[in-house]
């Protein structure tokens, strides 16, 4: 495998750090939003331009600064990182469109702050995706924690404060209390923090110590929302919907699972985990989360809260896939990062559009809404199908790989977990759609007159819903990247 | 050690015992007394104790003052016959330091008296709590 030294990863991150122009044009909203778009498009362009090289089996590297004598802040673009960066940056473009419609539609305050920190969060997300070692990953992980705090608490009311507290308590408690010591222990044991295909911990510590370390990492990356470190996510739903959509369905939470996958594959190494049978431990934790979160989601009436619990469950699919350690499961896990992102962001966009158009937040208030907002609810339906994992949507492809992976690993229990939870997914999503379209006229709470949300709130969910369908037929860029990454992780090179 | 041994220890090293006692007196004054001026006096006793300690370690039995006559070169003097001048010189500086400290402390005390009308620490704390 050849390695290219290029400044592109850094450029991608810097593209999102367009804070000065955003701040400078705070008095002219159009110029400000133009800068955001410019940043999003530039970032996507830079990331996409790295695709051919990575596809060709190359890795792109760039060392920013030798910050400690043996550890540097360095970037490395490999298939897995690129997959995640591609998902985040492409969805940022769509979300920017949506944000404009949503924030202006609701006449929100402090929009400059909102767009600045949004860009900042994306920079941190891409930084995590391109990190070459654990220290760099930790740096951007923490940067993301703080950059999202003003977004979560955007409304600045008491509820926002309470949620912000919970958010920081879990995220910082995990990262400072668990990940930081775990990272230092890894460094103490091995003298390095570099991610490498076979892991770096093999033969450096006993089974008990490794188990403790693994548990510290899995729970410490609280953004992955593995139970019992999940309850910040429903609380964070007080944020404006674009934040929930991009950050709490894509960027932030995926950074959590991405970090877990990175640590499992790059620090521990699949070989070591198989040898010690530690995969089963993590897979069990993930399975409990999947089933429990799905059951809780059933009982939620707040639409965004239901989506949040659904996200918690779906994130653990990724953790489960990584923990099964079989080729297809790993591919499925990585693919699920992308597929779930497109599906879930559609759902959040729809929830936001409903709120902008009608002010409704609760599912029980949405009977018959399909006749009032047919486009939005159609997009919702497609998004739901994708998250449940039914064809013709992208979610089917990743779940298919996960199922095959469970069979490959010869773990029928986890196969059942996936299947049962898919049924639960259907049980908490489909009634919403059914109620929206097929309730009797007496039950309907809306007039049968089409009145959609503003244009910029309706187009983005349609785009992402279409993308979800398209990904079923052409999963290529993501599937190819996931396969490359799996081969790399399992030592195929 | 026998009783005679202890007595011998005290008498032979009386200079150390004096400085230790003085130091304890000083510390006691600073910690236990509630009047600020008494505390300052305690502080001065503490500093003086250390100055005495330094000066006492310079002395030698039967030694003369370290003043050199002109016609005798330094290389011909026997160090055993003169008192070590260095600790004395050091303590000149230390005395200056303690005087300076005392000056600042007294100046502050005047300010405290102007503000609270008392130098009793307990009364000052009462005033602060009620303010």
């Amino acid at each position, binding site marked *: 495998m050849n390695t290219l030294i290029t400044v592109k990863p850094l450029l991608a991150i810097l593209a999102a750090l367009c804070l000065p122009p955003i701040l400078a044009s705070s008095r002219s909203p159009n110029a400000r939003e133009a800068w955001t778009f410019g940043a999003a498009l530039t970032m996507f362009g830079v990331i996409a331009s790295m695709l051919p090289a990575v596809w060709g089996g190359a890795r792109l590297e760039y060392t920013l*600064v*030798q*910050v*400690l*004598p043996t550890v*540097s*802040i360095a970037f490395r673009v490999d298939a897995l990182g690129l997959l995640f960066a591609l998902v985040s940056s492409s969805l940022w473009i769509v979300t920017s469109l949506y944000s404009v419609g949503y924030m202006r539609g*609701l006449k*929100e*305050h402090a929009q400059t702050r909102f767009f600045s920190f949004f860009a900042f969060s994306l920079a941190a997300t891409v930084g995590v995706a391109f990190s070459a070692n654990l*220290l760099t990953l*930790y*740096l951007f992980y*923490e*940067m993301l924690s*703080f950059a999202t705090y*003003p977004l979560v*608490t955007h*409304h*600045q*009311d*008491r509820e*926002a*404060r309470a949620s912000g*507290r919970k958010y*920081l308590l879990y995220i*910082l*408690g995990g990262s*400072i*209390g668990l990940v*930081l*010591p775990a990272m*230092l*222990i890894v*460094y*103490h044991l091995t003298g390095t923090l570099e991610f490498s295909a076979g892991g770096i911990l093999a033969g450096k510590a006993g089974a008990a110590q490794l188990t403790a370390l693994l548990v510290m990492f899995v729970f410490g990356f609280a953004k992955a929302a593995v139970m019992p470190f999940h309850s910040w996510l429903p609380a964070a739903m007080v944020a404006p919907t674009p934040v929930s959509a991009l950050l709490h369905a894509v960027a932030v939470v995926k950074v959590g699972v991405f970090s877990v996958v990175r640590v499992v594959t790059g620090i521990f190494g699949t070989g070591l985990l198989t040898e010690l049978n530690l995969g089963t431990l993590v897979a069990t934790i993930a399975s409990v989360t999947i089933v429990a979160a799905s059951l809780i989601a059933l009982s939620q009436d707040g639409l965004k809260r239901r989506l949040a619990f659904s996200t918690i469950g779906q994130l653990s699919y990724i953790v489960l896939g990584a923990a099964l350690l079989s080729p297809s499961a790993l591919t499925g896990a990585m693919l699920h990062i992308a597929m779930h992102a497109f599906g879930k962001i559609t759902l959040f966009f729809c929830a936001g559009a409903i709120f902008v158009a009608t002010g409704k937040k609760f599912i029980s208030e949405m009977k018959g809404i399909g006749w009032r907002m047919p486009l939005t609810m159609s997009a919702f339906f497609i998004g739901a199908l994708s998250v449940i994992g039914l064809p013709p949507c992208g979610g089917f492809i990743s779940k298919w790989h996960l199922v095959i992976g469970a069979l490959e690993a010869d773990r029928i229990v986890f196969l059942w977990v996936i299947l049962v939870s898919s049924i639960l997914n259907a049980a908490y999503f489909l009634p919403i759609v059914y109620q929206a379209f097929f309730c009797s006229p007496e039950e309907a709470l809306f007039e049968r007159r089409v009145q959609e949300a503003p244009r910029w709130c309706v187009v983005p969910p349609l785009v992402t819903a279409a993308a979800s369908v398209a990904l079923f037929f052409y999963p290529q860029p993501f599937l190819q990247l996931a396969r490359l990454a799996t081969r790399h992780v399992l030592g195929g090179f | 050690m026998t009783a005679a041994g202890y007595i011998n220890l005290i008498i032979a090293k009386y200079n150390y015992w004096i400085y230790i006692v003085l130091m304890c007196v000083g510390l006691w004054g*600073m910690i236990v007394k509630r009047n*600020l001026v008494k*505390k300052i006096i305690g*502080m001065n006793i*503490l*500093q003086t104790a*250390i100055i005495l*300690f330094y000066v006492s*370690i310079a002395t030698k039995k039967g030694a003369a003052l370290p003043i050199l006559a002109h016609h005798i070169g330094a290389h011909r003097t026997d160090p055993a016959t003169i008192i070590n001048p260095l*600790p004395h010189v*050091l303590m000149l*500086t230390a005395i200056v*330091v303690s005087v*300076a*400290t005392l000056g*600042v*402390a007294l100046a*502050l*005390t005047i*300010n*405290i008296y102007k*503000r609270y009308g008392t130098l009793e620490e307990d009364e*000052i704390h009462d005033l*602060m709590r009620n303010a």
Partner: protein
Amino acid sequence: MSAHFPALIVVSPLMAAMVVAILAWVRPGACLPLAVVTLAGSLWAAAGMLWRVVVSGPFAYHLGNWPPPIGIAYQIDHLNALVLTAMAAVALVNLLATWRHARRDFAERVNYFYALYLLFCAGTYGIIVTGDAFNLFVLLEITSISGYALVGMGKRDAALASLNYIFMGTIGASFYLLGVGYLYLVTGTLNMADLAMILPRLYGNKVVTAAFIIAMTGLFMKMALFPLHGWLPNAYSESSSPVRSLIAPLTTKTMVYVMVRVALYVFPVDFSFGHLAFAQPAVWLAVTSIVAASLMALSQTSLKRMLAYVLIAEVGYMVGGFWLGNRMGMTGAILHIVNDAAMTLCAFLAVGSLRQQLADDSFKALRGAFRRMPWTMAVLVVAGLSMIGVPPTCGFFSKWYLIGGALAAGQWAFVGALIFSSLINAVLFFRIFEIGFFEPFAASDHGHPPDLAYAEAPATVIAPMLVTAAGLVVLGLLTGRIVTRIIDAAIPAAIL
């Protein structure tokens, strides 16, 4: 001239202090420029010496050409060149950032403030460069006495706080002097290099052990290690803001430096760490200090008092890291001397600015501070993140070495204390940020928060603060270079 830097760096602020005191009568307007120029010159000299040490190794300077052990020698090596540069930078930046506040707080007495400021700096620089144990005491007292006077210049209860500071400070200094006296008794010398040569022959000597413990106790008192910290919170919170942001970064850190100097370069390393059973109790003391100070910080209701307790916890970091006795922990401690000075300066400058603009620094006064003073609060956020230990700020990297050293030494209690204090710092700072960000609350769901008057400090105050905040990040990113080029050479090879 650069050959005389070691002397000039002490003598020039000393002289300038006297000149300023005289100029205050003749040409009051010239005082501030003279002080700034002097401090800038000191920084230049310190940086020059650091450069020389890095390029060509340590060197000694004999005052008045008297060779040691008779004369006083100033010994410049990697350790003190680094600390000196940091302290000189802090002193200069602080004066640039706070002279406006000083004018307001001290009115017609402001020129005496400059004189004391210079005197304080002269003493601090002297402590750092001197290679003579008694000279160190004298300079320590110069620093302390000007510090007492500076604290005493504050309003309200400052005089009482300063007097208590005098009592505790004098006890500490006296203990140090006594320890030096014992050393002189058995070795007959006061020169540090000379002491380091003679002491290895005196391992079994009880007087040497007593000297070490007495001197260390004195230093612990001076650096406000729990439970000897009683003087610090009042002294720092009652003094006016320009003074606070000068003495808070300089005093405790300089004392930690003296501890490092004495334990590494006066006493033989195998005596300090091997022969004497001092390291383990010192680490436990540090653990207690960190935990206790963090808890006490939680119960404070004003920003400056809270920071004062955070500062005491940070002293515990350095003391504990140093007495871990391994290279990594020691690197962390020395690095933290520099980083903590920068962080403390940054935090106290922001607090000073808040206090000047909002006229109060209880937590209540901070309501809406993010909208009223966005730049100042941004600086406070950076300082807070650094104290919590978030990369890439410098606080993270010293914590990295400290925790790494504790892991290598198997001191799990110290690891726990550091993590605990990081989490407490997160709570402490976010409690403030919450007040500044949320309150006064928006009326209802999607309501806009009420408008507040913009009250940001003038640009001359903001600019040095922003430089300091940027410095925290730059220091963090330079950690690798500082460690490999300077700190590695500062730690004796005997430490592994």
